[in-house]
């Protein structure tokens, strides 16, 4: 999964001039990361509820925060409401993504950070026990 994220980010950087493709690639990256995080939460649920301070639990917690930061960054990039309440989501529905070039770097950075944390988890779960 982390390899997929890295490849997605690489592709995103290559097609950086194509804003529309960048948006859909970012969404695919976020969906893949969400899948990885949910799987990790499921695997370590009992352990982490009992003791959230365990290293792997902290990695997952950071991944969740990073994921949500990246979602906000994408919303900002698209000039969509950031972290809207349910009523706003319902009323706005589908909106055009109007990219803000100046917000692009923040999104790229957020996705890169997310990819790094997911990779960290993968290393940990593979037995590498990241530092």
């Amino acid at each position, binding site marked *: 999964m982390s390899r997929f994220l890295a490849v997605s980010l690489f592709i995103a950087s290559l097609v950086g001039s194509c804003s529309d493709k960048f*948006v859909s690639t970012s969404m695919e990256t976020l969906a893949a990361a*969400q899948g990885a995080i949910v799987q990790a939460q499921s695997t370590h649920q009992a352990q982490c509820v009992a003791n959230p301070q365990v290293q792997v639990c902290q990695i997952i917690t950071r991944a*969740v925060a990073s994921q949500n930061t990246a979602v906000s960054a994408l919303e900002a990039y*698209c000039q969509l409401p950031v972290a809207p309440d349910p009523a706003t989501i319902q009323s706005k529905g589908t909106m055009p993504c109007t990219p803000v070039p100046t917000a692009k770097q923040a999104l790229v950075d957020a996705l890169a950070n997310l990819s790094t944390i997911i990779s960290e988890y993968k290393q940990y779960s593979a037995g590498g026990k990241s530092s």
Partner: protein
Amino acid sequence: MTILQIIQLALAASQSVLAGLQKSGAPEEIISEIGAAIKGLTNAQDKAANLAELESLRTENLW
């Protein structure tokens, strides 16, 4: 059904039409027109950012 879902349905249908036309040996001009329509739908799909879909990508901290 959201706008995004409608676009995605149209895109899938157009791609099937294109495949059928190519298989039937349709004139290049017709195939080209369908190809252009698919390109337009693909662009529309990318632009139709669904707020609910984006928000569904948020993840809850369980502990």
